């Protein structure tokens, strides 16, 4: 590799159902300015900008790099926009990392956002047609399939929903703050798509998340500890083809394998200290624990059930509250990557996992067919347990 990339600044907006106080430019600037401030850099220090978001129809703004470039200090600079469905936030972070790794750009600002309150996410997810089943409607049969295959008890999803919302109470940026949430409340909330109840589903949020990435020189001068990008991987498969495993997609397994190999990780369950996984519907926590080889087949729900994925557990998942607590679609994948970076920098505040040195940031998208993940660490060449 020509260069090593590191996260030297992070910034996020407060996530909310509707950010009525800002324009599109105001929203992205809020995150970008915070990231620059965190890195103690100015706009002029940025060599290139990479933005990502979900389909343009969510806001009705086509190719927004064109109308947002001024707001992001990009005039006179390279700016490009990544679009890989729900995984886009992580794909964008990875694209930014490769700009630095190539040795062609020293300091890169990357940002993911969505101001989906301007439109309607269910409408857009259904292609703008009547009768949209939403993302949850597409995943529900696969979740039921997982439950049948694994023999998981029905309460697992409810447990995840409670855990992530309680974690979010320690994250001031999170959209949903539900300190009174309980298993009973989740179980009694309306059934949206069997088996998913309302409180097991992600909210629709406005928000933006940004990072400043730089090379080793930039990491050295950074005022706060950098998060080194140790490895990243992406894999894609078709949405539909004869014999496709929709529950444990091969692309997800391949992506994890490639990621761990690049990172030199042999035992992800032990060697990764904390994971921010893209869990928009509760059951995807155990499904991704298995789907990304953190545990064996049929074991994911047991990890959740045993409390291993709690903040106090052996493999904390989503201490930030995850997608279940904040979901500006274009930003969600970047938030996972940003939260992983925050953990190894020791800047996660009240949702910090003590001693986290190696963290996984993950996103998936489309018909669970796009995967993008990265491993960040507190050292450029970490020694694993």
């Amino acid at each position, binding site marked *: 590799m020509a260069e090593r990339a590191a996260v030297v600044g992070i910034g996020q907006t407060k996530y909310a159902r509707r950010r009525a106080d800002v324009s599109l430019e105001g929203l992205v600037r809020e995150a970008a300015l915070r990231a620059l401030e965190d890195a103690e850099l100015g706009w002029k220090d940025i*060599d290139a900008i990479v933005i990502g978001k979900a389909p343009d129809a969510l806001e009705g703004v086509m190719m927004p*790099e064109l109308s*947002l470039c001024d707001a992001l200090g990009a005039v*006179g600079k390279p700016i490009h926009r990544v679009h890989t469905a729900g995984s886009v936030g992580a794909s964008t972070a990875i694209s930014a990392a490769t700009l630095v790794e190539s*040795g062609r750009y020293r*300091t890169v600002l990357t940002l993911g956002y969505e101001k989906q309150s301007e439109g309607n996410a269910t409408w857009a997810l259904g292609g703008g047609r009547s009768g949209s089943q939403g993302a949850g409607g597409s995943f529900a049969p696969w979740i039921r399939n997982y439950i049948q295959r694994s023999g998981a008890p029905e309460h697992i999803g409810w447990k995840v929903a409670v855990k992530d919302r309680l974690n979010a109470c320690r994250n001031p940026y999170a959209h949903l703050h539900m300190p009174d949430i309980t298993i009973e409340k989740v179980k009694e909330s309306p059934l949206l798509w069997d088996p998913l109840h309302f409180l097991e589903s992600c909210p629709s949020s406005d928000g933006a998340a940004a990072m400043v990435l730089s090379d080793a020189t930039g990491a050295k001068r950074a005022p706060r500890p950098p998060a080194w990008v140790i490895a990243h991987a992406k894999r894609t498969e078709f949405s539909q*083809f004869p014999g496709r495993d929709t529950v444990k997609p*091969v692309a997800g397994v391949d992506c994890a394998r490639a990621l761990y190999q690049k990172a030199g990780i042999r035992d992800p369950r032990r060697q990764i200290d904390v994971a921010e996984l893209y869990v928009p519907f509760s059951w995807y926590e155990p499904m991704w624990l298995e789907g990304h080889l953190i545990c064996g087949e049929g074991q994911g729900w047991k990890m959740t059930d045993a409390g291993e994925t709690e903040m106090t557990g052996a493999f904390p998942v989503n201490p930030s509250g995850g997608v279940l607590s904040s979901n500006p679609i274009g930003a969600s994948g970047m938030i996972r990557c940003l939260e992983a970076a925050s953990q190894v920098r020791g800047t996660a505040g009240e949702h910090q996992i003590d001693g986290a040195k190696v963290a996984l940031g993950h996103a998936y998208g*489309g018909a669970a067919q796009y995967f993008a993940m990265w491993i960040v660490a507190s050292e450029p060449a970490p020694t694993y347990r």
Partner: protein
Amino acid sequence: MTTRERLSRSDEDIAIVAVAQTPSHRHYDDSEASMLMDLTNQLLAESGLERSAVDFTIAGSCDYLSGMPFAFVSNVDGFGAWPPVYESHLEMDGAWALFEAWVRLSVGDIDIALVAGSGKSSPGNPREIFPLQTDPYTAAPLGLDPASVAGLQARALLDAGLATERDFAEVVSRSRRDALSNPNAQVKKDVSADALLAEPYYASPLRKHDLPPISDGAAAVLIARGKRARELAKKPVWIRAIDHRIDSHHLGLRDLTDSPSARLAAKGVGLHDGPIDVAELCVRYSPEEIVLRRALELAPGTAVNPSGGPLCGHPVMATGLVRVIEVARRIREGRARRGVAHAASGPALQQNLLCVLEGDA
């Protein structure tokens, strides 16, 4: 802003080893994915590679052209994604996908990338779609379309004495004539500037022929690094540099007679470090050729758009990549040694990408 030294060892240079494009169709009767499938198969056949030998795949396309959020997902069918592949997608012209692929290969750990751009403009009404690229509060609700902005740019050129209406007509006349020898061009004919000038205005001082046609089409290239490039192509076309920059989106703050971002990109690629034998520019509106020739400081005799350019075929989201292919082809065929391909995005050349290509000595 810092600029990094380019990797100078020849093993690290990246070359185009195969190219493929569809003709520019007024209407293609099947999907983008089917076009991309044909091109992918062509590239693999030409270079003798299995699909699995391609390390990274990246495409450019635009959902709004087909009016379907997530339309790009279907295009994956075209490149093949089983077994799963490492791929990405930009909601931009394939030329920017080429940029990302070139950067990705520069990291040095992988060797071969497939790059594509595709779009069908025929189903929708581009004139109504493209205003959505403008400021959502102050411009998009006015339906401010690119032809209208091009009209403003054209008048600014006239007012500044930098061009005449005849100059615009000459660009179109020359392009249409050159397109006669391009089997992929959509609009081609021998028409004089005088005949063109007799047509009525559409967005004054522009006439309908000063605008691009509506087209469906796709383009794809295979790029490879150093040693691998030499193994895959007898005549690799080296990518010397790619740079892209953007201007303000506030039209009222821009000097429409010039393109500062094109100038910056030219500096970034070292455009004039050598002779330019051929330039394929994204001239969608005839005044853009005038602006670009000035901004890129092209010598008066430089061959611009021998393919006919986008005025003769404009498969949006592939158009920029087609420019790269047209230059690469000429270099490969020995008709040029060094050339530049240009891609643009946004109203009045707001964003500009340059790619300098060179054959072996």
